[in-house]
């Protein structure tokens, strides 16, 4: 009986104050849309960065006079370096082919011979891809007598690292701001809808309702508002991601469990907003 009353009373709030509850739901939807939009941006930015880093590798040019046995021995030594994820051999003719594909020039016709030395391509593990670590590994590789030279896209790594950190810092500040504004917006709207029904709370207190009974219906209402607001925000973001995939890039995606998390966040906001607002009227 108690639970049925609380749930029914909570749901009837939508019928009894349709305007106020609708405004609260729209506020929640807007707030979650902002938060979600922000989450999507950061997720896709990080994803882009990760994907770029996948392509970063070291080119280890080796002494062309090495016989195959020496070469495999060197490859094994490189593979044993803890930071190394993958290492593979690129023979001169393969390097030439790649060069010609990339720059469209026929080196053989110009130079009459293949100028490119044999090399190893080395991909580092994710956690060893920051610039100082890469430099250390480059030095280590260069200390091998069979290695002539090690090159990698140093400037590109430096550029990305610098701007990624900056972007992340800006995102953090903006994200906190967006989150705060969203929470304030939602809490304030819910507070207003509850303020409109302070009479109800006062009567409940007068006739001897326990705090559980007074809060219960508002909690139910808050949870349902959060759920509906969250679902609406998810709809908007879904459409937005679809459009972005169509017009910007197919690689734009959403984090795992994005929509359930967003609805969950809506529920938590609705619940907490109602909880705090009702509490204000329960103080003696």
């Amino acid at each position, binding site marked *: 009986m108690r639970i049925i009353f609380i749930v029914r009373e909570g749901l009837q709030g939508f019928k009894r104050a349709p305007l106020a509850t609708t405004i609260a739901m729209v506020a929640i939807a807007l707030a979650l849309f902002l938060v979600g939009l922000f989450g999507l941006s950061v997720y896709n930015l990080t994803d882009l960065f990760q994907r770029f880093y996948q392509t970063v590798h070291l080119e280890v040019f080796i002494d062309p006079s090495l016989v195959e046995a020496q070469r495999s021995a060197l490859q094994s030594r490189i593979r044993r370096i803890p930071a190394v994820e993958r290492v593979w051999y690129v023979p001169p003719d393969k390097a030439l082919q790649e060069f010609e594909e990339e720059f469209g020039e026929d080196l053989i016709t110009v130079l009459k011979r293949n100028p490119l030395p044999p090399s190893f391509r080395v991909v580092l593990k994710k956690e060893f891809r920051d610039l100082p670590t890469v430099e250390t590994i480059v030095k280590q590789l260069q200390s091998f007598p069979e290695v002539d030279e090690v090159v990698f896209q140093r400037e590109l790594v430096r550029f990305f690292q610098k701007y990624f950190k900056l972007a992340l810092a800006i995102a953090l500040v903006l994200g906190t701001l967006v989150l705060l504004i969203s929470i304030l917006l939602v809490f304030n709207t819910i507070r207003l809808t509850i303020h409109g029904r302070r009479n109800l709370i006062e009567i409940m207190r007068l006739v001897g309702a326990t*705090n559980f009974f007074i809060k219960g219906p508002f909690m139910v209402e808050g949870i349902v508002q959060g759920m509906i607001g969250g679902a609406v925000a998810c709809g908007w973001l879904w459409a937005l991601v679809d459009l972005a995939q169509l017009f910007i890039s197919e690689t734009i995606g959403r984090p795992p469990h994005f929509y359930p998390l967003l609805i969950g966040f809506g529920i938590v906001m609705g619940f907490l907003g109602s909880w705090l607002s009702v509490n204000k009227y329960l103080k003696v």
Partner: protein
Amino acid sequence: MIEIFNVTVHIGSRKVLDSVSLRIDKGEFVYLVGKTGAGKTTLLRLIYMDLFPQRGNVIIDRFSSSTIRRRQIPYLRRKVGVVFQDFKLLTDRNVYDNVAFALQVVGEHRREIKSRVLSVLTRVGLHHKRYHMPQSLSGGEQQRVVIARALVNEPFILLADEPTGNLDPEASSDILELLEDINRSGTAILMATHNYQLIRKFPHRTLMLEEGRLQELPLEEA
């Protein structure tokens, strides 16, 4: 039974009640008179423990203001009915639901709610208007709904803060007759008012608050 011992209440820097003592026995009918701002409402709030004294002690039934815990207050309020001048009815539900609300929020069963609400509405003479919305009732009728709501939990005392303040003399007399009827069935009544005509017409024990002090008025003086 209600006992107030030597109670002092400050609101802000103002001393609203000054060493007030009072005892109301089971089934008594008591008027509380005094000018606006004399502290009548404050005294009533002490009884339903919406307010606590800085000094002294208030004992209502088995609850004492000095030892009661916050979560016990709802249980005290179920034994104390409260009626206001400004009605405080829920305009989004009908008469029946307004009265039933007082039982729903204390977790009563539906069948029990129905029989008690219908019985109390009969008692205040509004059984036939149970599906009306409060806005469609006269002032006197609305006050009857509030009284029904306060009574439905079967309190041992009914506190009425200027219950006739918004009513014409005829409706006021009707309310007083209803309160006397309730009183005859054993519920104590404490009614704050400054309607002396009404007191003369329905004489009962009368207390007067003046400058924070409480004094008993002889019947003929009231």
